[in-house]
């Protein structure tokens, strides 16, 4: 009957459509896929293409929020089997990943024979390799620094303040600067500015001093930004002339034609590495090892630097840039003679959050 024939064709069509929609089929069944959680800027289009070609698999990068969110994702029921590869700030994620005792680790030991590019990690970052006993659990892949990104057309580069965190606090630029709405980074840089050498272990009295100082300077801050786009927009719309900012913000603003640069605060530059690790029950262990190896390759590192200005830990990549580009990208931080302050989770993070709350509520 006509109706039956039509119905069968329609049913076949619907089934085919449903199979396509569900990703069922010979092609997709064979597609290799790596589920990753890493900051988006570490996988821009060009660098992603290189990495996907190297590992012959598609990378599905899930949203990255923060180191604590990464820890929460891992600790959630089933968290160690849901993702194949994760990146996070080394100083923040080490403790939650390793946990208190051997055998409790949420990551699996890396097989370094499958990551030959690990040998290229610069001596500067050897101390950032996370080990317990003979096992290596995390490898630093990307590094970076956070400082003040400022507009050279509005703030003269020869002003001594530009080489200090004081650029954010001095009354000279009141109302033209913005901090980040983040208890850790904002309190850390303020503490460094006030001469506190180890902010993460500072006493409650020092934390109170930092809080009072922030409150006393509250009117100087035009606002506090919460996201990458918000920060870039603040600068590009000339709402402010200087922000506490990240490397890719500088890159994004320069790409817009803005005459911005970052400072090298003499009180101490905030530096970090992002380490890669494989969650304990990852279902794509081979692929994840290949991806870490690829992320440490010369080709990937060079491309990442060109796209986002983020430096990588691979010493070959640093050496491949001209002296001028090394200075522009910050590969020469060691030669600048400024203290480097590495991010670490504060012993009393609860109090830091409350201090930041007091600043905002004041």
């Amino acid at each position, binding site marked *: 009957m006509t109706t039956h024939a039509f119905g069968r064709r329609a049913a076949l069509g619907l089934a085919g459509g449903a199979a396509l929609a569900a990703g069922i089929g010979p092609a997709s069944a064979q597609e290799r896929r790596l589920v990753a959680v890493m900051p988006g800027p570490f996988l821009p289009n060009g660098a992603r293409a290189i990495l996907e070609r190297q590992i012959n698999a598609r990378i599905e990068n899930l949203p990255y*929020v*923060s180191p*604590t*969110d990464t*820890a*929460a994702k891992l*600790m959630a029921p089933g968290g160690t089997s849901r993702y194949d590869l994760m990146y996070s700030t080394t100083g923040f994620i080490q*403790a*939650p990943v390793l*946990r*208190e005792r051997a055998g409790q680790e949420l990551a699996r030991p890396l097989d370094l024979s499958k990551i030959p590019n690990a040998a290229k990690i610069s001596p500067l970052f050897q101390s950032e390799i996370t080990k317990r006993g003979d096992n290596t659990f995390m490898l630093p892949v990307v590094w970076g620094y956070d400082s003040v990104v400022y507009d050279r057309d509005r703030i003269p580069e020869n002003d001594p303040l530009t080489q200090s965190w004081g650029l954010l606090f001095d009354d000279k630029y009141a*109302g033209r600067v913005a*901090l980040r*709405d*983040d*208890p*850790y980074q904002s309190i850390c840089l303020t503490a460094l500015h006030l001469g506190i050498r180890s902010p993460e272990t500072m006493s409650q009295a020092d934390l109170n001093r930092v809080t009072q100082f922030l409150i006393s300077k*509250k009117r100087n*801050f*035009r*606002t*506090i930004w*919460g996201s990458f786009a*918000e920060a870039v*927009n603040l600068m590009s*719309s*000339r*709402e402010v002339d200087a922000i506490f900012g990240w490397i890719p913000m500088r890159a994004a603003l320069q790409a817009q034609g803005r005459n911005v640069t970052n400072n090298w605060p003499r009180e101490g530059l905030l530096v970090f590495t992002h380490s890669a690790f494989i969650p304990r029950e990852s279902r794509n262990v081979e692929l994840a090892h290949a991806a870490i190896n690829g992320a440490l390759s010369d080709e990937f590192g060079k491309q990442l630097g060109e796209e986002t200005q983020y430096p990588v830990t691979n010493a070959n990549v640093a050496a491949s840039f001209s002296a001028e580009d090394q200075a522009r990208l910050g590969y020469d931080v060691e030669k600048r003679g400024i203290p480097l302050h590495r991010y670490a*989770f504060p012993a009393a*993070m*609860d109090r830091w*959050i*409350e201090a*930041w*709350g*007091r*600043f*905002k*509520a004041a």
Partner: protein
Amino acid sequence: MPRPFPGVRPIGKPFWLMLPGVAWLLVFGLAPVAFMVAVSFWRSSIFGTTPDFVFDSYARIIEEPLYLDLIVKTLRMAALTTLLSLLVSYPLAWFLATRRGAWKAVWLVAVFVPFWISYVVRTFVWLPILGRNGLINQSLMALGITDAPVEWLLYNEGAVYVGLVYVYTLFMTLPIYLALGRIDPKLLEAAADLGARPWQTFRHVVLPLSWPGVLSGCIMVFLLAVSAYVTPRLLGGTSGIMLGNMIASQFLSNNNWAMGAALSVTLVGIVGALLLVTGRWIGIAEVFTGGKK
């Protein structure tokens, strides 16, 4: 009493028909709240949250004055947002309810369209409007009203009110509009025939009859505003903090789920108590019973 549907036999009291609704409430309503209450008594550290039974988080909330300050500030801002929303929405709802024909549909769509856009975008849009180089400042300077940008339009508590009232207007307007739409126009004519002035008609006829809509709108806006997070963060600048922001920090920056949950439970408890107390004299029960006694 005649059966409304001849030939259809009643099947007793089919309580099982309520099962889907009850299950929904239990799974998506009560269970998350129960879990939140449980977590608030747990212990959190950088290594995760362990299911102990401790009062540490509540003790901290009590001993640290910051939390009380934030709760008071949050309640004050939510209450003022509710009041401002009511002042904006009641005339708007009256305007919509008194339109006729095709224009009524046009105006209704005009009110609804902005709410098809993401909440975040609707908040973000205020930045290029109120900013230093935004639309208002550019206009003021172009018209020669000001020589320099007005700084206080953005990044303060006032900007947060602008954002909150804007994003929650519909939640106030809609119930009032529906309540006004149910008022029989003959009542207004009767009041006028009996010599009532417009204000007296409003005071003694329109307002009492639209009161359930007003209450419903106020409760919705208050509850939404009390848990606001995005608007204060985007528009409030250095002062953009409400309890929602502190709760978010506990989860996102500190991995302290216990403290975040305890702050949430505290807020729920205080808001619940407020509704209970104020509900006695503003007739809040009408909102939940649909006006039936």
